[in-house]
């Protein structure tokens, strides 16, 4: 004999309609193709950066007789940890949704959004420092590569923050249930993807 709580949990999980069941895998595959296309977009810019850097006589390059400075590794390490931390909180958010723990889901989702915004603020601060150091977009291949790639990534983080906010509103309005939460899965995958792209950029611009 099942307890009342168990029956209630099962009732909340057994709400999958046939259409959702049939289309979920197709939508997931479509979303994965989107992530792969985004990966190709970043790869093309990354290869351009690698080519420019390896073909330059010196790195950082000289501009007007002065060698440009290296980027600030310690600040970037801190900002990277903020973004990676947001990946962990987003994973916890999805896991809590799966386990029907709504309050914890919202708490972790808000933490993810805050960490994402903190990363964007950190990037804005980083850009300010880099510009003050004389590294500009049109001034050198180093600046052009840096601002293009980190700008593209920052744009993805901004879109991700908007995306997660919309997901939170949708979840609050009852769009997702214990069994139907593909949007949340896609949001989590997107956020992890943005994290992993930063791993590559962090290595290329600050550690290489």
């Amino acid at each position, binding site marked *: 004999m099942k307890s009342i709580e168990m029956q209630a949990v099962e009732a909340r999980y057994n709400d999958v309609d046939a259409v959702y069941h049939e289309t979920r895998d197709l939508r997931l595959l479509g979303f994965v193709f989107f992530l792969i296309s985004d990966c190709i977009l970043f790869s093309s810019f990354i290869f351009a950066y690698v080519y420019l850097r390896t073909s330059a006589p010196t790195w950082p390059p000289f501009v007007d007789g002065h060698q440009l400075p290296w980027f600030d590794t310690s600040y970037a390490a801190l900002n990277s940890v903020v973004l990676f931390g947001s990946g962990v909180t987003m994973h916890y958010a999805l896991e809590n949704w799966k386990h029907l723990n709504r309050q914890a889901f919202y708490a972790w989702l808000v933490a993810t959004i805050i960490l994402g915004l903190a990363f964007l603020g950190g990037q804005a601060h980083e850009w300010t420092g880099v510009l003050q150091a004389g590294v500009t977009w049109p001034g050198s291949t180093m600046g052009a590569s840096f601002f293009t790639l980190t700008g593209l990534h920052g744009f993805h983080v901004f879109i991700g923050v908007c995306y997660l906010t919309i997901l939170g509103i949708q979840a609050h309005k009852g769009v997702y249930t214990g069994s139907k939460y593909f949007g949340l899965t896609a949001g989590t*995958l997107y956020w992890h993807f943005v994290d992993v792209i930063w791993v590559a950029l962090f290595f290329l611009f600050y550690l290489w």
Partner: protein
Amino acid sequence: MTAALLERTIALIGAIVVAVTACVQLKDDWKASGLDAVITKLLLGLMAFGCVLALLAALNVVGVH
């Protein structure tokens, strides 16, 4: 304490915490099946690798020019 040292210290502690948490999540999800689970595990693993890079950068092992 200089700003750089403070940044490295926070990054070091944060990288350890995040890397351990990511590894725990990876372990918990290890037996999960399906395309989304496989991609999540791959991305979590790469994120843990990123934490190791951040940790090494905070310790001045890599990224010293």
